[in-house]
């Protein structure tokens, strides 16, 4: 009976462990196998060489990184400001929190299609500009001719969709900060900015770190928003994985792309953990 008791938790975890084996380890090692081994199970780099010859590969890396470094900080700032506002606990702040979490339910594909109705040449933004008298003819936001504009449109859509999760994480973090710290700072005459930079941000660091890691990893997987707004005009890593598998039916190259995504993800997580590791803040110079 005693022995039973000791192994019981592992029995409970058995289905989960089996699942992890089949649906995480199995595909993970298979991806490596597809990327590095040929049909005869011999190690090869031909698929990676082919990948390097694909001119879209480098633009995919470029655009994926560009999206990550623009969207994530933008989301963090927006979410932080909204979180500070909601955290004031005024009448209606709960309602606002609910409104802000609506995009949490919206998929990347749906968000792309929603913003399509805004950005196409027949879309609402063009009509709005016309209404203001700014333009006479529609502007082509989503065209090959103007990649920066296209990039910005995708950025706005993705920023709109995925800021909610950062907001929720930050508000949860803010609520855990003890009011005493802020009251003490007030007593000693700290102004709004001092309170933010010397108290709130240092205490919020663990939440900021999780939000950063989660959002960056998902930014590397940006897919349907880009496809819905830009088709194949702006290559990103996940999109290329999809095209290589779906259109060219080449699971080797598709796996190479997937492997590149995970390498980037691991690198970035390591960097974040190194530079943002949480230390107990020291209050000296408030």
């Amino acid at each position, binding site marked *: 009976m005693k022995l039973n008791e*000791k192994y*019981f938790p592992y029995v*409970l*975890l058995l*289905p*989960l462990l089996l*699942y*992890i084996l089949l*649906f*995480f380890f199995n*595909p*993970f090692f*298979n*991806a490596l196998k597809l990327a590095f081994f040929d049909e005869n199970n011999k190690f090869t780099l031909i698929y990676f060489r082919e990948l390097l010859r694909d001119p879209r590969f480098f633009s995919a890396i470029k655009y994926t990184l560009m999206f990550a470094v623009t969207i994530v900080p933008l989301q963090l700032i927006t979410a932080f400001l909204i979180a500070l*506002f909601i955290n004031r606990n*005024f009448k209606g702040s709960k309602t*606002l929190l609910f*409104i802000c*979490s*609506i*995009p949490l*339910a*919206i*998929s*990347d*594909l*749906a968000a*792309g299609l*929603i913003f*399509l*109705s*805004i950005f196409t*040449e*027949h*879309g609402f933004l063009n*009509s709005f500009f*016309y*209404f203001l008298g700014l333009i006479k003819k529609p502007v082509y936001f989503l065209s090959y001719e103007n990649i920066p504009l296209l990039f910005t449109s995708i950025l706005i859509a993705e920023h709109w969709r995925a800021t909610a999760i950062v907001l*929720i*994480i930050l*508000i*949860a*973090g803010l609520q855990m900060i003890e009011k005493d710290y802020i009251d003490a700072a007030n007593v000693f005459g700290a102004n709004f900015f001092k309170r933010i930079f010397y108290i709130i941000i240092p205490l919020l660091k663990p939440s900021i770190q999780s939000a950063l890691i*989660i959002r960056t*990893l998902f930014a590397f*997987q940006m*897919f*349907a928003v880009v*496809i*819905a707004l830009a088709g194949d005009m702006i290559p990103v890593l*996940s999109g290329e994985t*999809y095209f290589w598998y*779906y259109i060219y039916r080449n*699971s080797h190259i*598709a796996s190479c*792309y*997937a492997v590149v*995504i*995970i390498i980037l*993800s691991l690198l970035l997580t390591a960097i974040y953990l190194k530079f943002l590791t949480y230390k107990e803040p020291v209050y000296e110079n408030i």
Partner: protein
Amino acid sequence: MKIFKKFAQIITFTIISLWVLLPVFLITVSTFSSKQEVYKWPKNLLPKDFSLESIKFFFSSYGTISSFKNSLIVAFITLILVLFISIPSAYAFSRYYFKGRESLKIFILMTRMLPIPLLAVPLTSFYITLSLYDNLLGVALIHTAMALPFSIIILSGIFIRISKEYEEAAIVFGASKLKAFLKILLPLSLPGIAAMLIFTFITSWNEVFAASILTVENRTLSAHILNLLDASPLYFKYAGGFFLSVPAIIFIFFIRNYLMKMWGGF
């Protein structure tokens, strides 16, 4: 001064709400517009006609209805699988101390960080040998893999918050462990489990990459829409975006009070 503050608060509130709600409003207007209205330029900023033309077109086009059904079936299977795997695991995490518990928890969270493309592409050949390719069960299996890490973490959090003493009292009075779980812990954590399941539903309903890679004929709604992006007119896309969003938005309304608890654990 006080009035000024109140005024600033209302303005900020309005700006933030508009930023979130306006796009949802605009896709709704687009979906309830006629085909002509969709291509008209410049548009009326306030909608003039109300038409079900786009919606009729969307639902009468080949594959839409069946993909709608498929999405529901996949989400339903996913819910069942998540339920049966996450409840025992969360029970183990919250009620026992065993070797490797904390590292296993972190490891489970890390599995969620694996990119979906990395999981989906190699799974195709695995699925073909098991004849799960182009099969709704196959899609549900990978959706379960995506939903499990968060649902287990969320559920462990819910179980931990319910004191162990209630169950222990029941066991003292002669209930078995299973009975104590079924009669005490399960009913007490039911609202939390419901919230977790809704979140799982949204995850499955919204997932597009794996569903598109792993199916050919038996598409889910999002895979169906993605597949037709190149070939479909604007009004089809708008209706698609609208009907992808509506169920998920309705569901998130029900779990609005749980969102903080679910994501606060990070």
